[in-house]
């Protein structure tokens, strides 16, 4: 692809307590692309996302981002439970310092902030819940509020850590629709860590299969479901027979 990549990983490796989680990871993601990172549990998908977001430092390699306006949607929402939905969603506007001036954006009135929060909540299909606390919401609603919080600062890169885990199939479909909607609205580049075949099928442009600390397969989502590669086939058919050993899953 001639276009300059939005995210580029070069020779990334990560260890915990002397154990290598992954090594020699090279990955390039184009602007506005949605990349799904898949693999069995414990293969390092979420760790890779944390490395890209800057929460973890890799042992080797570099992460190059074309834009530092990045956000991460956490697996269990990670909403601030002592704040209301309004305070959670408006958090980045109230507390986050401007990248250039290092001063928080305090120049919005509460009415302006409420209108902006309402707009983002509307985008993820939520109505007037601004004064509720996270523990008053269902799991799916919490997830959607965390989407709204993530897109409040119009990020150029959005990382999703298992966005459909723990949700029923209908709620999962809804979340997948929101990922597509958010991408269309914000033109952001996205990485989605998932186990969910439906998410891969409906959302991802490309798929990267991680296992044994390495990228074992990469291609488009259509190629993934038709691939003869033993790793891709085993994952796509949810089979116990294949190179990915059950004891490591």
């Amino acid at each position, binding site marked *: 692809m001639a276009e300059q990549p939005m995210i580029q990983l070069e020779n990334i490796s990560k260890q915990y307590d002397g154990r290598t989680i992954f090594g020699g990871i090279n990955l390039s993601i184009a602007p506005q692309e949605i990349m799904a990172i898949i693999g069995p549990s414990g293969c390092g998908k979420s760790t890779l996302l*944390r490395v890209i*977001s*800057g*929460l973890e430092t890799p042992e080797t390699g570099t992460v190059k981002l074309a834009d530092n306006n*990045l*956000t*991460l949607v*956490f*697996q*269990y929402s*990670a*909403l*601030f*439970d*002592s704040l209301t939905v309004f305070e959670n969603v408006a*958090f*980045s506007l109230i*507390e*986050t*310092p401007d*990248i250039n001036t290092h001063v928080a954006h305090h120049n919005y009135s509460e009415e302006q902030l409420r209108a902006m929060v309402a707009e983002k909540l509307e985008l993820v299909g939520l109505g007037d819940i601004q004064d509720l606390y996270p523990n008053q919401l269902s799991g799916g609603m919490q997830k959607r509020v965390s989407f709204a919080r993530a897109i409040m*600062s119009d990020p150029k890169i959005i990382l999703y850590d298992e966005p459909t885990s723990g949700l029923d199939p209908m709620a999962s479909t809804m979340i997948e629709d929101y990922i597509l909607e958010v991408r269309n609205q914000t033109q952001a580049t996205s990485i989605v860590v998932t186990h969910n075949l439906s998410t891969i099928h409906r959302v991802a442009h490309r798929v990267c299969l991680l296992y044994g600390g390495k990228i074992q397969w990469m291609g488009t989502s259509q190629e993934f479901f038709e691939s003869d590669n033993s790793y891709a086939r085993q994952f796509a058919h949810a089979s116990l027979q294949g190179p990915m050993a059950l004891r490591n899953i």
Partner: protein
Amino acid sequence: MNSRSQPQLFPLTRLLVRLLLSELNALLYTLGLAAHHLKTACLYFLSGKLSLKQYLEQAAFIGVDALGISLILTLFSGMVIALQVAQELTKQGAGELVGALVSMAILRELAPVMTGFAVISMVGSAYSAELATMTIQNQVDALKVLHVNPVRYLILPRVCASMTMLPLMTILTAMAGIVGGMVISYFIGGLNYNNYLESVWRQVQPHDIYGALVKAAVFGGLIALLSTTIGLSTTGGSREVGISTTRAVVWSFIAMSIADFVLSFIFFSGVS
């Protein structure tokens, strides 16, 4: 090798040593981290990044949570001291010293220390548990992703609130302790209120008050800094939240006791 068949000597000692080493390791790590957090918090404070709203919320939390219990603790401490000395000193003809003795003990030691105890048990433990839960639920990571430094957002307002509220609370608790001593001196020692208060007035010097206030501010800073640092360095699950909370309480007690000795030495050792 036949090491398996040999009975182990002092197996419990080995376990104990391992536990102590692990606790020492955690202590050194936490102290280093707390020093780093303190430096970062100071830099944020000096650059005017303390949120007034958060500071007031935390100050209100400390006041509401810990003032009642610290008043009760110091009131009864003053009553106990008076109970033990009032009768005896009156018998010896030194009744006019009861107020002086009670006020000195209360101001120099018991008011700041009892207030510190109350704040550790009511506020320090809550800080540690809250921040540990936020850490294991990725809320602290969410702050970092939103480019908000957890030290500025979580530690700075708590440390500032604690450092300013403890001295204010100490003034109130000292008054409660002195009044408690006065009531007991009246009923047990038969001392009238005027003599007691005159004795207090004669004894209390400005440096006693400054010393008590500085002690309280230092205790407040230590309690908040240690509790929040321990909370933020928690990894694991709900069991670790419990361990962090206990650790925050125990280490705050120890740190406060050491600081109490050092500050008493600085302020009061050469006074008399």
